[in-house]
């Protein structure tokens, strides 16, 4: 049987403002806590993907340690193509490959028996760690 679990851990990262995390929202649907978030990150796609896998593992362990039940945690990683800038002042043409790409990360966690505020903090922290 599901029992209510009200433990809320404190949130100590930079995006904390009245417990609203930009780009993250959560709501309850019956017993399910639904938390969604997205963020654009500039960086190397492969590194971000690798970090994301590690961060989701950490999130998973945290939910289970809090006696939560994971419905699912899903993330989607989308990336624009490498950006090239072509410019000229009339003398010659410069072609510059821009370093780093904008990577859009979307994450949805649907869990049971987990505190909403704590989960939002965890997901905000996950984004910060990428």
């Amino acid at each position, binding site marked *: *049987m*599901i029992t209510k679990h009200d433990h809320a851990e404190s949130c100590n990262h930079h995006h904390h403002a009245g417990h609203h995390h930009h780009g993250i*929202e959560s*709501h309850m*649907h*019956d*017993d*399910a806590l*639904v*938390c*969604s*978030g*997205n963020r654009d990150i500039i960086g190397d796609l492969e590194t971000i993907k690798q970090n994301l896998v590690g961060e989701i593992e950490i999130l998973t362990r945290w939910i289970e340690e809090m006696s939560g*039940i*994971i*419905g*699912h945690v*899903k*993330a*989607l990683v*989308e990336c624009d193509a490498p950006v090239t800038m072509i410019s000229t002042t009339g003398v010659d043409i410069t072609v510059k490959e821009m370093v780093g790409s904008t990577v859009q990360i*979307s*994450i*949805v966690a*649907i869990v*049971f028996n987990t505190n909403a505020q704590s989960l939002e903090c965890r997901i905000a922290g996950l984004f910060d760690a990428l």
Partner: protein
Amino acid sequence: MKILILGGFLGSGKTSVLLQLAEYLVSLEKEYHSEVKVAIVENEIGAIGIDDKVLKKAGFIVNNLFSGCACCSLTGELVASIKKIQTELDPQWLIIEATGVAYPGSIRTVILDEVGLDATILIIADAKRWQRLVNAMELLVSGQLEDTSIVLLNKVDLISSAELKQVEHSILNYNQTAEVIPISAKAVIPEDILKKIVNQAEDLYDNKA
């Protein structure tokens, strides 16, 4: 328009099954000697969609219902969406992927009452997590089994044959008439299984017609 409702708990593999099923339906074009149009309604309780993007990348027409559940809080939106698809696209097949916390039987009732069309329900169950989920939320997972005649028992590659028997037995305790078909949706689902699902939906459609 034949309607298939894909239900089952979160993480059971609904989207993986949906992709293979939709691709199979499109492949029937050769058999039917005409285009087979498949539309998908993707319902997610989250504000952000993930599965709809996966399905769109695969080339399918996807209508989104976000931030609620088609069996309860978004019934009006579901009905409007089905009517719009019927009018604007008129596909041969409509597949509705329910949220992992929906009761597919309720969705079927809404469609029957409001649109006048019957639907076939297909449930996907997670063999690996079945017992744990039954222990934690029996009402939900057993309620999802109501009103279906086929349960695709997914992820059987992750359990032993003894565990498989236990899970099958448990499912049949909740729905005695269902046929439980073991699959592993991360691999290719055998064509005869997909055909069985399609045949059942076609039979329902033919009988109603």
